[in-house]
């Protein structure tokens, strides 16, 4: 990861230099082609899911809703409770491993095509292009003095950006609070303080990051950008300039010149403002805009495409590229194993949770010839139907529950039930004994949970 030499030469001249760099505004030029098409396809897919997701309905409720106030997390037919946090951890592990795998195989694929920073920047640049025109028109507009036209153009661009950002923020909050209620609140400007804060906060983040910060986020803020280089090896697909074919650069038709005509389209198209012909750089997000740009030019010149292309270091050195190498196999194996395990675990999940809490003040009571212990059972019904449960106990001779052993729990809620358990005094020795509670849904025998506890005799 080296900095271009030109930067160093410029910095060497003055006596005292600033340690902070003023951002050079980048005006990426629009290019069309295979990879731009893929990026747009992914913009559509991710954004239809993102903007549309909270509007879906399932079981007469919002299909995807993370209800933090009531600590219930609905994802279609699944209801997660805070106790299921392990699934979130596993999801993050799967995401991380998938990132490792894709990066090892094809470089910064995530960055270039699906990262929200890239996706929203793409949308915002599209707006910018429609309102202000392409690269050259934008550069000209920025150089112009303030005029009515400039104010209108800039104002229109920011207005569209802000609307889009607010809609994004609104959608984000819609995953955490019912979006239909949020929408009617939006129409009457009656957001609660926290709803307003998060809509504006997330909207501002979208506007700032996709409108203003852009490549600065990737270059300076994103940790993934930096550690993905650790997953690269010489068999990783990276965006490469074919130096052997392109050099020396020269006008089309000039003697001894390579295929690169030095048109600069790869530099103009680059959203991070680098020259891919300098080799692999940490700023490169792998968006392949330079490939599309170069291919456009090569087609026009009737030269073979692929002067800039996805290739590997080994291929460039004339060696064989190995796709199935240990790194890829290990990532794939772990990823598949975890994905299979979590799928199985979700499929076998029992929609009932039970906690047994032994009363600590009263260890054991003598009731006639019997010994009694008291427990609290927290019964959590994670289905979306009201359920009747039968509580059973075993582990000691003639152990039984006194009083009502049936309890009804409302859909997706929990209930605390005091339970009295008794044994004959003469049948058990003083001390502690392992017992086991079993809570079973009446009418749905597969829904049963066993929890162990301790019975005390004095």
């Amino acid at each position, binding site marked *: 990861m080296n900095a271009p030499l030109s930067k160093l030469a410029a910095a*060497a001249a003055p006596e*005292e230099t600033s340690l902070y760099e003023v951002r050079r505004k980048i005006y990426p030029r629009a290019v069309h082609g295979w990879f731009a098409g893929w990026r747009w396809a992914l913009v559509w897919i991710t954004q239809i899911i993102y903007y549309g997701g909270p509007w879906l309905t399932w079981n007469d409720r919002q299909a995807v809703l993370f209800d933090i106030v009531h600590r219930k997390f609905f994802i279609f037919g699944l209801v997660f409770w805070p106790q299921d946090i392990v699934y979130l951890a596993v999801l993050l592990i799967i995401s991380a491993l998938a990132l490792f795998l894709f990066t090892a195989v094809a470089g910064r694929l995530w960055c270039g095509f699906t990262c929200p920073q890239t996706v929203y920047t793409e949308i915002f640049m599209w707006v910018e292009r429609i309102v202000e025109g392409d690269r050259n028109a934008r550069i000209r507009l920025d150089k112009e003095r303030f005029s009515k036209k400039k104010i209108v153009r800039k104002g229109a661009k920011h207005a569209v950006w802000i609307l889009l950002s607010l809609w994004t923020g609104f959608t984000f909050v819609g995953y955490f609070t019912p979006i239909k209620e949020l929408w009617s609140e939006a129409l009457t400007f009656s957001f609660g303080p926290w709803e307003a804060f998060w809509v504006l906060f997330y909207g501002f983040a979208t506007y700032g990051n996709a409108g203003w910060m852009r490549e*600065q986020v990737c270059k300076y803020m994103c940790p993934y950008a930096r550690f993905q280089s650790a997953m690269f090896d010489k068999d990783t697909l990276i965006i490469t300039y074919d130096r052997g074919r392109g050099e020396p650069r020269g006008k089309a038709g000039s003697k001894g010149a390579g295929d690169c005509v030095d048109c600069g389209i790869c530099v103009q198209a680059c959203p991070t403002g680098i020259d891919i012909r300098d080799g692999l750089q940490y700023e490169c997000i792998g968006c392949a805009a330079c490939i599309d740009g170069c291919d456009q030019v090569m087609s026009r010149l009737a030269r073979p495409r692929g002067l800039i292309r996805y290739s590997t270091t080994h291929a460039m050195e004339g060696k064989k590229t190995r796709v199935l190498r240990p790194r890829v196999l290990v990532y794939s194996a772990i990823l598949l194993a975890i994905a299979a395990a979590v799928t199985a675990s979700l499929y076998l999940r029992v929609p009932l949770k039970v906690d047994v809490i032994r009363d600590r003040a009263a260890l054991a009571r003598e009731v006639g010839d019997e010994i009694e212990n008291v427990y609290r059972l927290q019964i959590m019904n994670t289905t979306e139907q009201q359920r009747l449960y039968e509580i059973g106990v075993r582990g000691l001779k003639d152990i039984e529950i006194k009083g009502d052993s049936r309890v009804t729990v409302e859909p997706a809620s929990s209930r605390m039930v005091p*339970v009295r358990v008794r044994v004959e005094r003469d049948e058990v020795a003083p001390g502690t004994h392992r017992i086991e509670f079993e809570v079973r849904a009446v009418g749905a025998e597969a829904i049963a949970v066993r929890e162990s506890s301790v019975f005390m005799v004095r």
Partner: protein
Amino acid sequence: MSQFTSGFWDIYIGVLTVVSVVACALFLKSQSVRKAPGPADTTGHTWDGDLAEYNNPLPRWWSWLFYITIVFSLGYLILYPGLGSWSGTLGWSQVGQLKQEQELALKRYGPLYEKFAATEIEALVKNADALGIGQKLFLNNCAQCHASDGGGARGFPNLADMDWLWGGTPEAIKTTIAEGRTGMMPAWGQALGEQRVKDVAHYVRSLSGLTHDSIRAARGKEDFDKTCIACHGQQGKGNTAMGAPDLTDKVWLHGSAEDRLIDTISRGRVDLMPAHKEKLSGAQIHLLTAYVYSLSRSGVAIPHRK
């Protein structure tokens, strides 16, 4: 800061804080430029022989973030307490925040309790919603001593039977919860001596038909009639006005075994039920009363025990 007897430490902390913030700002300023670098712009660190670290400049907006933190800290120190004894222009305090949140909670959850406040206890006993709230209050506030089922433990009365130390009417239960109770049994060991205490113990056992030495019981009756009847009554039936237990039934707060009775008589007992009127609102106590009242009337009352 009450543990400090002079204002010195307040000033010391305040001065240190301000000096630190200003020093940070000066440091930032001084470190944002550097002398002209040498030919190769690296940090000078080398690893593995040839691995060098380039010294690329940070973006300028990054340095603004540092300055923003300084502006933020100065604003914070003016608005909130932080500089010694300065209490901040907003007047914020932890206690104040707690009070505010409590008021907010009362406003939000108060109506849940209030809607039952006007209903008679006898009617609430049939209301599943009210009993559900009452049970939650019971589990959070009462179950630590009286057990989750209200069945009590040695020294802590069973609330699920029909035997009441201080009376089992809704009014009596409510008073018990709100005001608390102190059950006092004086110590008679000094006054009576070992043998006479044992005699009284046998007499007390005879009252509820437990096995006893009838000679000792007869002797014990004399002392009982002189000393115990003031509270426990002529027949030993107890007195709910002062929380004196009925000695003729099978309910024993501290146990009916001979040694436990001797212990109770010779050393006395002090049983304390804490007052809850400061902790719970009137409406909450009303619901709690209904729940406790329902325990002994739900049809599955826990039988009397030793």
